[in-house]
């Protein structure tokens, strides 16, 4: 019997375990296997294989039973996910429905999830910007959260490393507040976006409109062909999964790459209930998982554990990983785990019309979506009555106009032979929110899901700083649009709850001091250093950038550290 147990333990033992296969988990898998480690990736959702499991990818619009709309019964039963812009008939199979995985909203919070191999990297909006030191130094300068234990120089080489592999299109704009990267050619601004760029340049010297930077192969390099990916074909149907691998996802890029090493074991349908802690060894020894179909529990073992379950699920898992040594959750000696959760404020839009460039329209589709306005408020010094600031998306579109005739022959003719209407211009706010102790997640005291995990109780809300910042965004964008000669300017407050931005972050923040943070500068739990957290949970503050690129860079950096430290016989 003893031998059998030893054999079975051996069969369940890997060099490293990665929990989650999304943006961060995919990178952990690629890097760990790339450095020769036998790696187990555990994914709670079903398998989704590149090309094979994109059932809607080549459907024409008329082939959808409801023209893209979600049936009312689905919306009624799943109000949270139905508010997500990408939850449409063509991609609804990649999103978690409210009814399948309940959670507790102590305050309204739209938790948008993708439980499958690849996670949300399949359906993400693909916008990628680097942080600068104006972002990393934010908490220290402005006196909130704790100081980041890292600076731009620590991450810059890793941004370069992941950008080259993922493929990031963008223009070298030379802005200190938004560092340039290893860019493939940028997607161009269109006539009106470019006009606005010029107007802003003339009238606001410190504000910039640039081509949106995104994870699309505008011009692939050999390393992308080697992944089996080719040039983006401007379909802009990315949320269905891309048959060209035109945008970066775990499914098209990091996971197949890891697979080629022969060192990857990928197990879908496995919910990790807890990370196992050994008091004698003073380290994590593995994980306990439950199979989502059979409900059987199994243990797997490894020297290194990467927790990449998605920001809030990473909090849930660590809080649920209790032991005699860690009664409040793994590594949670200071009781701060689950606290200081933050997000991005996406609840504001400004739209307008432009009566110029009448002889021009666009042809084809722009996968970058248009332009990007980097944060211009409080960058170099504090200058407003609120802390921090916002970036903004910027897009212009030439619409069709068939309003001349109400109905009948003339109306039909206007639909078959449409005239062009004015250009419409739209902007959306991406505001930094300040992490606060009161914005937190915790394990529900009584309720569990069918896999034995406590439900996550989410208590996150906007604050006064968010309201002031939103007001400023409305004023500034309206003024910039006015200065550019745009008309019919409208502000819109969507009133949406936190979470719908799908940029929830924090709860297991990085910092220098184990008394006030959970992770060190290498994303190791201070109190259990062979456990690494490199997804959104690690974020000390949020700044305004779309966060995925930073998760990728932090993950690759942490793996490099972990493997080198292990080779030295160090802390892991």
């Amino acid at each position, binding site marked *: 019997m003893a031998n059998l147990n030893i054999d079975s333990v051996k069969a369940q033992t890997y060099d490293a375990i990665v929990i989650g296969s999304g943006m961060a988990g995919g990178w952990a898998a690629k890097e760990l296997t790339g450095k020769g480690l036998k790696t187990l990736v555990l994914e709670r959702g079903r398998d989704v294989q590149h090309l094979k499991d994109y059932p809607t990818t080549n459907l024409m*619009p008329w082939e959808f039973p409801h023209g893209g709309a979600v049936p009312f019964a689905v919306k009624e039963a799943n109000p949270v996910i139905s508010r997500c812009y990408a939850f449409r008939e063509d991609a609804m199979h990649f999103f978690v429905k409210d009814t399948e995985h309940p959670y507790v909203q102590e305050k309204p919070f739209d938790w948008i999830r993708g439980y499958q191999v690849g996670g949300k990297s399949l359906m993400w909006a693909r916008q990628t910007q680097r942080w600068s030191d104006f972002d990393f130094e934010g908490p220290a300068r402005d006196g909130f959260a704790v100081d980041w234990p890292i600076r731009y120089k620590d991450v810059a080489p890793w941004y370069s490393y992941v950008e080259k592999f993922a493929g990031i299109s963008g223009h070298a704009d030379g802005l200190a507040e938004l560092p340039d990267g290893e860019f493939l050619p940028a997607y161009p601004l269109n006539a009106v976006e470019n006009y606005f760029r010029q107007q802003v340049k003339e009238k606001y010297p410190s504000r910039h409109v640039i081509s949106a930077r995104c994870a699309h192969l505008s011009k692939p390099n050999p390393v992308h062909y080697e992944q089996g990916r080719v040039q983006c074909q401007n379909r802009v149907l990315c949320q269905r999964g891309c048959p060209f691998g035109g945008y970066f996802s775990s499914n098209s890029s990091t996971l197949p790459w890891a697979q080629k090493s022969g060192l990857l074991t990928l197990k879908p349908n496995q919910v990790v209930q807890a990370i196992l802690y050994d008091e004698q060894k003073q380290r994590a020894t593995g994980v306990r998982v439950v199979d989502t179909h059979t409900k059987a529990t199994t243990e797997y073992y490894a020297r290194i554990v990467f927790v990449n379950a998605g920001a809030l699920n990473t909090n849930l898992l660590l809080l649920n990983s209790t032991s005699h040594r860690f009664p409040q959750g793994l590594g949670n000696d200071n009781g701060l785990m689950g606290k200081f959760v933050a997000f991005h404020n996406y609840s504001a839009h400004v739209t307008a019309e432009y009566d110029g460039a009448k002889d021009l329209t666009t042809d084809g589709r722009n996968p970058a979506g248009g332009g990007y306005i980097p944060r211009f408020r409080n960058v170099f010094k504090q200058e407003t009555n609120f802390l921090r600031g916002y970036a903004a998306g910027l897009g212009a579109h030439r619409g069709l106009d068939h309003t001349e005739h109400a109905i009948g022959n003339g109306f039909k003719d206007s639909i078959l032979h449409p005239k062009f209407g004015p250009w419409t211009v739209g902007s959306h706010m991406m505001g930094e929110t300040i992490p606060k102790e009161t914005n937190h997640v915790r394990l529900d005291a009584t309720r569990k899901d069918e896999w034995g995990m406590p439900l996550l109780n989410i208590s996150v809300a906007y604050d006064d700083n968010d309201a002031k910042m939103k007001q400023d965004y409305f004023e500034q964008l309206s003024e910039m649009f006015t200065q550019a000669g745009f008309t019919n300017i409208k502000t819109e407050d969507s009133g949406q709850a936190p979470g719908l931005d799908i940029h929830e972050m924090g709860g297991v923040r990085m910092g220098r001091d184990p008394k006030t943070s959970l992770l060190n500068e290498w994303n190791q739990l201070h109190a259990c250093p062979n456990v690494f957290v490199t997804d959104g949970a690690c974020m000390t503050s949020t700044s305004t950038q779309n966060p995925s690129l930073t998760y990728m860079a932090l993950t690759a950096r942490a793996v490099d550290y972990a493997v080198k430290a292990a080779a030295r016989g160090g802390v892991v």
Partner: protein
Amino acid sequence: MNRRTALRNFALVAGATVLLPACSHPPAELPASVPLRHLAINARQEKTFAEVCETILPKTDTPGAKDLGVPQYVLKMLDDCFGKDEQRAFQAGLGQLDEAAQQRHAQPFLGCSPAQRLALLQGIEQEKGFSADLVSFYRTAKRLTISGYTGSKYFLTQQILYELVPSRYNGYFPIKDINLSQSHHGQS
């Protein structure tokens, strides 16, 4: 049921109606040809509604709404994708259409000439003395008739070409070079 099945069913029903005398209308007690779970629409109302769609987008030298199965598509959309309040308003408005036609043209909508139908719907478009439900019915019908027509295979292959794989983006496309029915046509 997908759109294709709807069209196929429609073709079967259309074939069957050839056997009926040209002037007859389906009796009210027969159910609609489209399987409906929430809307209570009978065969006569369905036919009335098809003529509403056809009045909005009539057959000319190009197909009309009926040719493309738009009425069936609209009813399916209403049944599957709309809430109870909108469905109720639609049903009530459709029910009031014959009454409105009687008042203005002394016959039910189906008995009206195309010109009378057009005049009636144009009046509703301008909301001149019609009930809220009738106006709501008309607005919903018009919106879905347009999306059904412009989302149809015919429209997206023969009129304004939908390209699954454009492989290009030009942000400065001259409007004078537009040909919407061909690739590189100047639409996003």
